[in-house]
C-alpha cells in the first residue's frame, strides 16, 4: 500500500507560485480535473455549465445552481432569486 503525506492547509496562508508549479509548463503538465472543466448541467442563474456532483438545489424553488451562484444562508442553500 503506497503511503504519502498530504499537507494540511487551512486558513489564508499564501504559498509561493513556484511551489505550486504555476509556470506555464508545469500547468500544462497537469491534466484538467473533472471539476475544473465544463460539465453537463446548466446553472439556472448564470447559465454556466457545471458537473452534476457539484450541483446545489435551491430549497425554495428546487432549481439547480452552480457553486458560484449558490447563496448559503441559515444552513440552507438558495438560488440568487429566492435568497
Amino acid at each position, binding site marked *: 500500500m503506497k503511503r*504519502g503525506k*498530504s499537507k*494540511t*492547509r*487551512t*486558513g489564508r496562508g499564501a504559498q509561493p507560485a513556484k511551489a*505550486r508549479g*504555476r509556470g506555464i509548463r508545469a*500547468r500544462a503538465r*497537469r*491534466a*484538467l*480535473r*473533472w*471539476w*475544473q*472543466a*465544463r460539465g*453537463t*448541467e*446548466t446553472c439556472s442563474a448564470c*447559465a*454556466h*455549465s457545471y*458537473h*452534476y*456532483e457539484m450541483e446545489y438545489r435551491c430549497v425554495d424553488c428546487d432549481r439547480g445552481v452552480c457553486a458560484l451562484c449558490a447563496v448559503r444562508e441559515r444552513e440552507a442553500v438558495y438560488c440568487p432569486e429566492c435568497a
Partner: protein
Amino acid sequence: MATARKASKKGGARKSTAPKSGAARKATGARKATGARKGPKRVTRRSGAAATRPRAARPDPDGANDDVRVRPFWSGTVTFGLVSIPVDLYPANRPRQAGLRMLSEEGTPLRREYHNPDTGERIDNRDVVRGFEIEKGEFVVLTDEELESAEPERTRDISLDAFVDVDELDPMYFDRAYFLAPRENAGKAYRLLADVMENNDLAGIARFVMRSKEYLVAIMADGGILRAETMRFADEVRTPEEIGLPKPKKPRPADVAAMKKAIARLASEELPEDALQDEYLAELRRIAEAKRRRGEDVVEVEEPGDEEDVGVIDLMDALRRSMEGARASGRGRKRA
C-alpha cells in the same frame, strides 16, 4: 416509505437471444411484449454517416439534436462474488439541451474565466483547488488523492452484493443512468451477468464512488447491455412525515368513484407520441431557422479550442466502438 411499489417495466422490443437457463422463468405477468415501451423511437431511427468529428451535430429533420459531447468517463470493475468485470462507464442520459450559447456583440462565443473577487486577478483553471468550508471564510483544501483515500476500494470497484426483482424498484429513487461497456477481456463474464439478470428479470444492487460521491446503483440488463441507474440513498428521499404532509384520510367511496370516472375519461393505453418532446427547444429552433433563412443575425463561428472541452468525445460513437470491442478514441483515461 413504500418499498414494494410496482415499478414500470419496459416492453421487450429487443428479444434476448441468450439461451434461457434451467432456472424457472418468473412469470411476472407485468411484462408487455410489444409496443409498451415508450421511448426514444425517433432517436434511434437515425442512421447514416457517423459523425467522426466530435461536436458535429447531425442534421436532424425531427428537431432532436443528436450532438452529444461528453468527457471520457469513469472506469472500474464490477465485482460479483470473486468474478471481476472491468468496465467503462458512459452516460446514458444526454444533457438537457442548453440551447443557447453566450456570445459577445460581435457574435464570438464567450469563455468563462475565474478570478479572485478581492484582487480581480485572473486564476487559471488548472490552478483552482477544491476546499470545504469549515467556518465562515475558512477552508480546508482537499486533493483528489486524499478524497480517493477515504474509500480506495469503492473508487475502483462496483461491488454487486444483492439482486432484486426489477419490479420492486421504486421510481422515486432513480436519478441518473450510465451504460457499462466491457473492457479488456471482460466480454464473457459481462455477457454471463447480463444473461442471468435478463432471464430472471433481476436488477443487481451495487455501490461505488465516482467524482467524490458515493452512488447506490441498480444494474439492469437491456438487450445484453448493462445499464447502471443511480439511486438516492434512503436518507436522501424525504418521507411524508418529514415534509409535514397531513395524515391520510380514508376517502368516501362516492368521491373515489367520481375520480375513477374522471380518470376513465382521460384513459389511454399508450403514451401519446409527442408527450416527451422538448417543445421549448423545438420553438427555439423554429425561430432561429426562420431568421437564418432570412439571413438575419447569422454569425459564423470558428469553434475556439476551449480548454474546458479537452477530451470531449462523441457519445454514440464511443459507445458503439466500446461495444464492438475496439478501443475508444481520445482515451487518455482521465479519472473523472
